[in-house]
C-alpha cells in the first residue's frame, strides 16, 4: 500500500512531468547541434524512453487506484486519467510494434520493400566491400567533394547496380550532379517520335540537322510534317520559342512543327522534352483531329544535355580503367583519368573531388545497411502529376496513380494518392511524401508507408480525456472557492 501510494503520489507525478519536459528540452538542443538522426537514435527511439513513458503510466495507474473506492467527486479525475492511460498504451503499442519507411518509385516501377528512415550511422562505417572474383561485375565509387570557399566536405557513394536502390548511380550535392556510368554513353542524334494510337502507326524523324523549309510525308496516309524546328536550348520569349542566345538555358530541348493532311486541315505542335505531359497541341483548345502523340526520345539526347549541368561523370570500362568527365555551364568539358587519392579540381569555385575507394565487384556490407522491410503487398506507380500555382514553379499539389497488388489475397487496387489523401490497406497507410524529377527516369514519387497499430487507442482516448478534463475543471469545486 505504501509503495502504491508512493508510485501514485503527486510528488512522483511532478518529478516525471518536469523530468520529461527537461529531457525533451535537452534532446531538442542536441538535435539542433548534432542533427535529427542523432536525437532520434539517442533519445526518442530508445528503450529507456519507452521505460520513462511506462513509469508515467504506472504513476497515473497507481494514483487512479489510490482513489478507490471511487466516489462521485472522483468522476472527472478518473475519466481523465483512464483516458491518459489509454493514450499511453496506444503510444507504447505504436512505438514498439509500428513501422514506417520510404519507397521511391519512378513511373512504371514496382516494389514491395520499404527502407527505414536513415539511421545515424557511425562515421567511417563501410557501406560497400569488394566481392570475390566470381561475383558479377558491379562498379562503385566512394568520393569526397570538398571546398573551403563554401565549407563543403561531403562524402558520397555511387553504385552501378544496387538491388535495393535503382537510383544509387547518381546523386546531387547542391547544384552539382554526380553520376557513375559503367561504359561511356554513345552520343547519338535526337529524334522526334510521332505516334497515332488508333492505327498503331509510329514515325521517327531525325532532329540533329533539320531544315524548316521541307515537307516530310508521314507514311502513305497523306499527312505531312512541315516547318519543323528543333531547339536544343529552348527559351520562351514573348510567347514564341527561340534558341537561347548563350547557353543560359542549358537543357531544354524543344521541337515545333505543323502537320497537314491532303484536305488542307492543319495542326501546330510544340513539344518540350522536359514536360512530356503537356498537351503538344498549340492553343490547347483545338481538337486533336489527327490523333497524334508527340515525344522526343530520351535516348537520342546528347550526353551533355541528358544530365543536368554542372555534372561530374565517373566512367568505368569493363577492362577496369576509370576516367572522369566534368561538364560546366560556361566552360568546355574536362576529361581525365581517375586515380584514388588524387584531388581533381572541378572548376566550380575551389571545389575538388577526391576518390577514396573504387570497387569493380561491389557488394553491400549487410551489417551497416539501412533497415529494410518487406511488405505483404507490391506497389506500382503508373503516373505522377505535379500541379503548380498559376504563374510560378511552386507546386500546389502532387498526386500519383498507383496499383497495389496483394498476391496472397489475389487483390489488385488502382487508386490515386494525393497529398493528405493516403491509400489504406490492411493496417498500412501509403502517403505521397515527395517526388522526383530525373532526366533519365522521368518523374517519380516517394511514398511513406506506415503501420501504426496504436492509433485507434490514441484517437479513442481523446474524447475520454476531453470529457474528463471538462468535468474536472468546470464541474468541480477548487482552491479559492473557500476564500469567497
Amino acid at each position: 500500500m505504501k509503495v502504491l501510494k508512493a508510485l501514485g503520489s503527486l510528488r512522483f507525478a511532478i518529478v516525471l512531468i518536469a523530468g520529461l519536459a527537461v529531457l525533451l528540452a535537452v534532446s531538442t538542443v542536441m538535435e539542433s547541434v548534432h542533427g535529427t538522426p542523432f536525437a532520434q537514435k539517442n533519445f526518442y527511439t530508445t528503450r529507456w524512453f519507452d521505460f520513462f513513458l511506462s513509469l508515467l503510466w504506472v504513476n497515473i495507474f497507481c494514483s487512479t487506484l489510490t482513489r478507490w473506492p471511487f466516489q462521485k467527486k472522483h468522476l472527472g479525475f478518473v475519466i481523465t486519467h483512464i483516458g491518459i492511460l489509454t493514450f499511453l498504451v496506444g503510444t507504447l503499442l505504436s512505438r514498439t510494434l509500428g513501422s514506417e519507411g520510404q519507397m521511391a518509385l519512378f513511373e512504371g516501377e514496382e516494389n514491395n520493400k520499404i527502407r527505414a528512415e536513415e539511421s545515424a550511422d557511425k562515421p567511417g562505417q563501410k557501406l560497400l566491400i569488394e566481392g570475390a572474383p566470381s561475383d558479377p561485375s558491379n562498379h562503385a565509387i566512394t568520393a569526397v567533394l570538398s571546398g573551403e570557399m563554401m565549407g563543403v566536405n561531403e562524402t558520397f557513394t555511387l553504385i552501378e547496380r544496387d538491388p535495393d536502390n535503382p537510383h544509387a548511380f547518381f546523386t546531387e550535392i547542391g547544384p552539382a550532379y554526380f553520376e557513375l556510368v559503367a561504359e561511356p554513353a554513345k552520343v547519338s542524334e535526337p529524334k522526334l517520335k510521332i505516334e497515332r494510337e488508333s492505327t498503331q502507326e509510329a514515325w521517327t524523324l531525325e532532329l540533329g540537322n533539320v531544315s524548316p523549309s521541307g515537307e516530310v510525308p508521314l507514311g502513305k496516309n497523306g499527312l505531312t510534317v512541315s516547318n519543323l524546328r528543333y531547339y536544343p536550348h529552348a527559351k520562351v520569349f514573348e510567347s514564341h520559342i527561340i534558341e537561347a542566345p548563350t547557353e543560359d538555358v542549358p537543357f531544354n530541348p524543344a521541337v515545333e512543327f505543323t502537320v497537314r493532311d491532303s484536305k488542307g486541315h492543319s495542326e501546330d505542335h510544340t513539344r518540350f522534352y522536359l514536360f512530356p505531359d503537356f498537351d503538344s497541341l498549340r492553343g490547347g483548345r483545338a481538337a486533336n483531329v489527327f490523333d497524334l502523340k508527340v515525344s522526343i526520345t530520351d535516348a537520342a539526347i546528347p550526353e551533355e544535355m541528358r544530365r543536368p549541368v554542372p555534372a561530374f561523370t565517373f566512367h568505368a570500362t569493363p577492362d577496369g580503367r576509370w576516367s572522369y568527365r566534368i561538364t560546366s555551364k560556361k566552360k568546355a568539358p574536362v576529361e581525365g583519368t581517375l586515380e584514388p587519392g588524387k584531388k581533381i579540381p572541378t572548376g566550380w569555385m575551389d571545389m575538388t573531388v577526391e576518390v577514396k575507394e573504387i570497387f569493380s565487384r561491389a557488394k553491400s556490407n549487410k551489417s551497416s545497411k539501412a533497415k529494410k522491410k518487406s511488405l505483404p503487398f507490391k506497389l506500382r506507380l503508373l503516373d505522377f502529376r505535379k500541379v503548380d500555382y498559376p504563374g510560378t514553379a511552386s507546386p500546389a499539389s502532387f498526386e500519383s496513380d498507383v496499383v497495389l497488388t496483394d498476391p496472397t489475397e489475389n487483390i489488385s487496387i488502382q487508386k490515386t494518392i494525393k497529398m493528405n489523401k493516403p491509400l489504406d490497406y490492411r493496417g498500412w497507410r501509403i502517403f505521397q511524401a515527395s517526388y522526383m524529377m530525373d532526366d533519365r527516369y522521368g518523374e517519380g514519387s516517394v511514398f511513406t508507408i506506415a503501420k501504426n497499430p496504436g492509433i485507434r487507442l490514441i484517437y479513442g482516448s481523446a474524447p475520454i480525456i476531453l470529457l474528463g478534463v471538462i468535468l474536472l475543471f468546470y464541474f468541480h469545486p477548487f482552491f479559492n472557492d473557500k476564500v469567497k
Partner: protein
Amino acid sequence: MRRIQKALFALLVAVALSQGIVLAASEAAKRVPILHNGRIKPFDAFARQTLKTLSGSERWQGKDATPVLLEAIKDPKILKERLWVRVEYAELKTHLGFPKERRFFSLEELEGADSKVDSLVKSAKTKRDRDERPSKLEQKAELLYTQIRTLQNLVSGESLKDFPASGASQLKIETEVLYLSAKPFQVAAFAYFLGFLLLTVFKIRSAGRTIGIASAVLAVFFHTLGILARVVVLSRPPVSNMYESMIFMNWALMIFALFFSLIKKNAAALTVGALVSAVIMLYGDLLPIDSSLEVLVPVLRSNYWLSVHVMTVVSSYGAFGLAMALGHRHLLAIRFGKFSKKKEAESADLIYRVIQLGVILIGTGTFLGGVWANESWGRFWGWDPKETWALITFLGYLAVVHLVYAKRISHFALALFSVVGFLLVLMTWYGVNFVLGRGLHSYGAGTGGMNWVIYYLIFEALFLSFILIRKKFTILM
C-alpha cells in the same frame, strides 16, 4: 461609436478633398489587378510591396506607392538611376566596395557588384541545401539580391507581363485596397492603448472608464475586421506565417480577456490584455502583409484539420499570454501591497482559469496536429522540434495545474509561473524556428525579430528581479 464614425468620416472626406483630382486618378490605378508571386492583387499592393522591398518604406519622399511606381515604370531612367535601394548592413557595403555612410543606391551602381552578390547568394543556397544557416553577410546579400531582381524585373517588364491580370475578384481587390489604406491593425493598436490608459487612470466607475472599455471593444472590432479582410484577400486561414500568427494570437487573447472580464464582472483581464495587444500590434505593423510564404507550400494547402490545429495552438498562446499579463499585474500589486486577501485570491483564481483554458487548447491543438500529421504523413508523432516544444510547454503548465489543483503552491508562485511559463510558449512559438532552426515546421518561419525577443527577455529579467528582491514570499504551501 456613432460620433467616432462621423468624425472619422469627416476626416476622410477632408483628406480626400485636399488631395483633389490626383487622388482620383491614382485611386483608379490602385485597383488595376496584377499577377504577382502567384496571386492576383491590386496594383497598389504590388506597388507598396515593391517600394517596401526596395526602400524599406511603403512611401517614397512623402508620396504614395502607386504614383511613385507608375512614374518609374514609364521612365526606365528612374528605375536605373534613382537612389532608392536601401542597403543598411555596413559589412555588406564594405564587402561590395560601397561607401559605408550611404544608405541608398541605384540599380546601376548595384549591378556593378552583381557577381559578388551572386557568389554570396550561391554560397547561402548551398548552406541551406545542406541544412545549415547562412552567415549574416550572406543573408543580407540574399536580401540585396531580391532588391536587385525586383528592379531588374521591372526594367525588363517581367513583373508586369500579367498586368492587368484577368479573372480578378472585385471583392478581393476592393477589400485589399481598403485594408492597405485603412490599416485596421494600426487603428486597433491605438484604440487598445487608449483603452488601457483610460482603464488604468480611472479606477472607479466613471465616464472615463466606460470610454476605456468602449475603446478596447472598438479595438477588438477593428482587429476582427483586419483578420477577416486578410482571410477574404488571401483565401486561407489567418495563421500562415509568423506575422499572422501574432495577430491571431493577440486576437484570441483579447477574446478571452473580454470573456473573462464579462463572467468575472471585472475589467482586469481587459486592461492588461489591451496593453499587451497594443504592444504586439505595433510590432506586427512593422512587418508587411505579404511574406515569402505568400502562396502556401503544398503541405500547408488549405486543409480543414490543419487550420483547426494551428488556430487552436495559436489561441492557446493567446490564453498563456493573457495569464502572463495577469501574472505581471498580480506580482506588481503584491509588490506595492495593493492586494487584499480576497483580491489576491480572485486574481489567482482568474490566472488559474486562464491557464486551464490554455492547457486544454494547447493539448487539443497539439493532438489535432498529430491527427493531421497522421492523416497526411502516416505519423501521429515524429518528435519534430516544434511539436516537442509544444509538448514541453504543455507539460510545464500541466505540472502547475496539478500543483494548484492539489493546493501545493501559493498564489504568488502561480503568478510567478504564469510569467516564467510564457518563456516556454515563446520558445515553442518563435524559438524553435529561429534558435534551433530545424524541423518540419520551419515553413512557419520568417527572419528577424530576434532583437525584440531579446528586449522582452531583458524586460522580464528586470521585472522579476524587481519583484523578487527585498520581498518575502512563499512558493510551496
